[in-house]
């Protein structure tokens, strides 16, 4: 007869909670070490400027259409929402001010971050993950080339440099979307709209937008590269890495957005 005691349900309950919590902290630790290791490697030669420019093109230029479409539609929809909501307390005239603040401080960086994360994090994870499972990363090491310097650092720095540029473009296009809808549908005076937009926009708003963009760029590349480099298990592993990269990037973007916003205004 077995004398094994039945598992205590309370212990089982806390174990079920504890395991994912411990795993989450372990993952945070691993990603942090990965980022620090990459930065340390990137500060010493050899450097790969051509790889940096290739990645800037991939991340920036190739993302422009999707970023532009997202920004113009969001800016226009935002103008309509503010006009409709504002009409409840006779505040329709605040449309230019709220469009510009919302776009520059919040929607521009976050939407660009999320769109680029969906496009770029997944691509990085798939490419590096495939290289991992086909032993190309191991081959690179045996061929006297450090994968952190050759693969990871150019992606990380390209993303940090490119995202602020993309966000600036998205902010302008988003404000322009709001302008178009306000002029042609809501009947605003073009000159007054532009004057109000320029008057309300402050240097701090633009700085916040750029800081957020750089932080998001860092997390987008970090999530994609980490998921790719830690890929295990063939094609299925590459699929999991791609999903993890996008989910990780989304969470990091939304969390860091809150932290940056609270740090600035909290």
């Amino acid at each position: 007869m077995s004398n094994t005691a039945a598992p205590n349900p309370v212990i089982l309950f806390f174990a079920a909670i504890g395991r994912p919590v411990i795993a989450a902290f372990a993952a945070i630790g691993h990603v942090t070490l990965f980022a620090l290791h990459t930065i340390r490697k990137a500060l010493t030669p050899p450097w790969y400027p051509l790889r940096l420019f290739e990645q800037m093109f991939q991340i920036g230029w190739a993302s422009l259409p999707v970023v532009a479409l997202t920004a113009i539609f969001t800016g226009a929809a935002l103008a309509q929402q503010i006009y409709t909501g504002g009409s409840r307390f006779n505040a329709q005239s605040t449309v230019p001010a709220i469009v510009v603040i919302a776009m520059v401080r919040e929607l521009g960086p976050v939407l660009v971050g999320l769109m680029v994360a969906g496009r770029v994090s997944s691509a990085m994870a798939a490419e590096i993950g495939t290289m991992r499972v086909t032993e190309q990363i191991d081959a690179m090491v045996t061929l006297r080339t450090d994968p952190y310097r050759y693969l990871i650092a150019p992606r990380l720095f390209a993303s940090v440099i490119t995202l602020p540029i993309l966000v600036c473009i998205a902010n302008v296009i988003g404000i322009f979307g709001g302008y178009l809808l306000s002029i042609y549908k809501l009947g605003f005076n073009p000159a007054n709209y532009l004057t109000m937009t320029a008057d309300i926009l402050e240097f701090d708003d633009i700085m916040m937008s750029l800081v957020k963009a750089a932080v998001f760029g860092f997390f987008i590349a970090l999530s994609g590269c980490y998921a790719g480099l830690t890929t295990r298990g063939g094609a299925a592993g590459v699929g999991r890495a791609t999903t993890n990269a996008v989910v990780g990037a989304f969470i990091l973007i939304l969390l860091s957005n809150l932290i940056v916003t609270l740090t600035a205004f909290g």
Partner: protein
Amino acid sequence: MSDQPKIELRNVSKAFGSNHVLRDVSFSVTPGESMTVIGGSGSGKSVMLKCILGLMDVDGGQIFVDGADVCAMKQADRDDVRTKFGMLFQGGALFDSLPVWRNVTFALTSGRYRNSGEMRKVALDNLERVGLGEEVLELRPSELSGGMQKRVALARAIAPRPEIIFFDEPTTGLDPIRTDVINRLILELVRDLGITALTITHDMGSVEKISDRVAMLYDGRIIWSGPVGDLRRSGDVHVDQFVMGHADGPIA
């Protein structure tokens, strides 16, 4: 020939969780020797090569390269030791995004775009050694057959003229003629250039053609090693079953 082994493993062990892949593995390879390790699929042969290269850390034991304990080295020193090695990976492991000539010269340029004209010539020299020509220089790996990919990978492994080359299943997927080309090349590298070779393979024809000595890895241990001429009279039932390719025997 020097008495000091080029590579020496002493009681090397490596486990993945409860799966003990290598248990107290010890053997040595002398300079200019062609050593082959045979063993069933999943017996830990590739893991052993990756441990020697420093791509994986060992759990226990020591690995010496030219008398220096590489497991006790700092990373930078280990990177220097790694420049002595070339490796032909089982699947080729060519870089998909680069043309053949840049794959072949990758170690010489550390992946950078430099001296393109000169590097193309270097690539062509090495490709000709493995029976390929100018027509493949600008092709991408995905445009090559499996056998051609293997030969390009071999050209890439020998391009920096390493002191030691590891061959991980060098003839898998090749037709008999190309298999012979690769076998001859391995012999040529060892005999003419004095390169030390460590090969892992299942191809018994290749084993008998390219090896000076053979070791068999089974259950994480080296169960037999000796000159290739003694392989068929080893007196070990595991080795006999593997060499003869019998389904019945102690190896499940």
